[in-house]
């Protein structure tokens, strides 16, 4: 949920890039990290495996600065796409304010995309949320590949509700900003949505500006951003599930990726359609806790989850201590 803090006049919104494995979610975040204005972006932190696959999430804070007197911050996350990481994927969705679904346009990936959307819906339901009421856009990525399906077909199969969509080649940066811009706009509208034009509605905004001690988050906390930071989980790799690569992070993305992402962008023509959702967005009705967890804990699965969790906890602890 959007956090609104009138003490230091700040709102924080959580955006999650969702989609099947390898569709380009992490690449999207890397492009945003590279191209966003210095003053806006924070570090990109990834908790990834040695094979450079997202293990838990990538995270990047984005500070939009002052909007009508309110400091507006976005927190961008990606999830791991692989099917067996569902438990961690679900955790990242907690309290989400807006979702970008990154689809792989290739014909042989369509089933994975459909499965991922279904999985997204299921996971949201478990939080008592509904995709129909959450700001949501779809990005058809990898438009450069010969196997990419025509947009009409992707639309028909992946976007029956007519969410706004964008074409992208995240690897070159194309379409990445338009996608995020559209989603951010929906999220900010959603904050303002319930608000009628009540006279004097901004009265309480007058409760004065920052009042916090100097150490608190009054000014922009971050000046320059370092390069993307890859985080090495502690070497508890022995516990990592076999065949999925030891859970140790790499220093670099495969050669060429960073520079590719920096490449000049052809002016993309994202064909956004206005969301034609029938009803105004509204708070989700409560329907929590009733859905059965799909992943029944048979023993192997439990061990896997525990191993992954152990690695994650180790990694996160390591990072946190390194930071402080």
């Amino acid at each position, binding site marked *: 949920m959007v956090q609104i803090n009138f003490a230091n006049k700040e709102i924080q919104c959580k955006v999650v890039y969702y989609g099947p494995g390898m569709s380009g979610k992490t690449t999207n975040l890397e492009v945003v990290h590279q191209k966003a204005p210095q003053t806006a972006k924070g570090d990109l932190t990834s908790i990834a495996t040695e094979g450079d696959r997202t293990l838990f999430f990538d995270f990047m804070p984005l500070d939009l600065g002052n909007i009508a007197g309110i400091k507006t911050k976005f927190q961008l996350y990606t999830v791991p796409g692989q099917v067996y990481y569902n438990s961690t994927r679900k955790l990242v969705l907690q309290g989400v304010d807006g979702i970008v679904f990154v689809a792989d346009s290739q014909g042989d990936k369509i089933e994975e995309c459909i499965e991922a959307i279904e999985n997204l819906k299921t996971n949201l339901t478990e939080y008592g949320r509904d995709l129909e009421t959450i700001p949501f856009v779809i990005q058809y990525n990898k438009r450069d590949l010969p196997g990419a399906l025509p947009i009409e077909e992707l639309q028909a199969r992946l976007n029956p509700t007519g969410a706004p969509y964008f074409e992208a080649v995240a690897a070159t940066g194309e379409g990445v900003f338009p996608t995020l*811009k559209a989603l951010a*706009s929906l999220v900010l509208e959603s904050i303002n949505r319930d608000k009628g034009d009540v006279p004097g509605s901004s009265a309480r905004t007058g409760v004065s500006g920052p009042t916090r001690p100097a150490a608190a988050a009054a000014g922009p906390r971050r000046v320059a951003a370092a390069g993307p930071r890859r985080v090495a989980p502690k070497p508890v790799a022995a516990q990592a599930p076999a065949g999925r690569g030891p859970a140790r992070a790499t220093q670099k993305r495969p050669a060429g990726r960073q520079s590719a992402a920096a490449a000049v962008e052809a002016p993309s023509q994202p064909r956004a359609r206005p969301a034609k959702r029938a009803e105004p967005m509204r708070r989700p009705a409560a329907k929590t806790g009733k859905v059965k967890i799909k992943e029944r804990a048979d023993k192997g699965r439990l061990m896997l989850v525990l191993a992954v969790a152990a690695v994650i906890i180790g990694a996160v602890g390591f990072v946190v201590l390194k930071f402080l």
Partner: protein
Amino acid sequence: MPKQMRQQTDAQLRESRLVFYKHDIQTIDSTLRDFLSRSKSKAALLVDKDGHLITQEGSTEKTDTDTIAALVAGCFAATREMARILGEDEFSALFHQGRKDNLQLSLVGTRTILGVLFDDTTTIGMVRLYAAETARKLSSTFRKIIARADADPTGGSSDIGAGFSEAAANTLENVFGE
């Protein structure tokens, strides 16, 4: 019917929009300062379960606290999931031991996490003791904030100035326009 109502309350506890006013943060900050001086800890962060930093006290100037907040929430979420699989209600505290500094995370109420950074000028026992007391104080503050949020169906959005939408569009154009 009553069951449905209770369900709604649970969901609200978890999902209502958190809106903090000046006096809320003042109350929370003073509770945290009190905690720091009594437990002799270095810094305290209060993070909501979604990963948003609520407030911080103590020496955190050089720290990227937004990222820390996201990691703390992720860490706690992973622990909670393990607890669920193992049939525990919730592991209410987590301890990370470093060579010099240690980090203790504990649950405050239903949706916030208190992160405490401390070194060997104090002990884990002291930190736990005072953290538990502080968690009780803070959860009562949070209950009030959540109760107020439920009483105000606009979720505080009515307090956002009228020019917000237009200004937002301009900002997005500036940041993402190409």
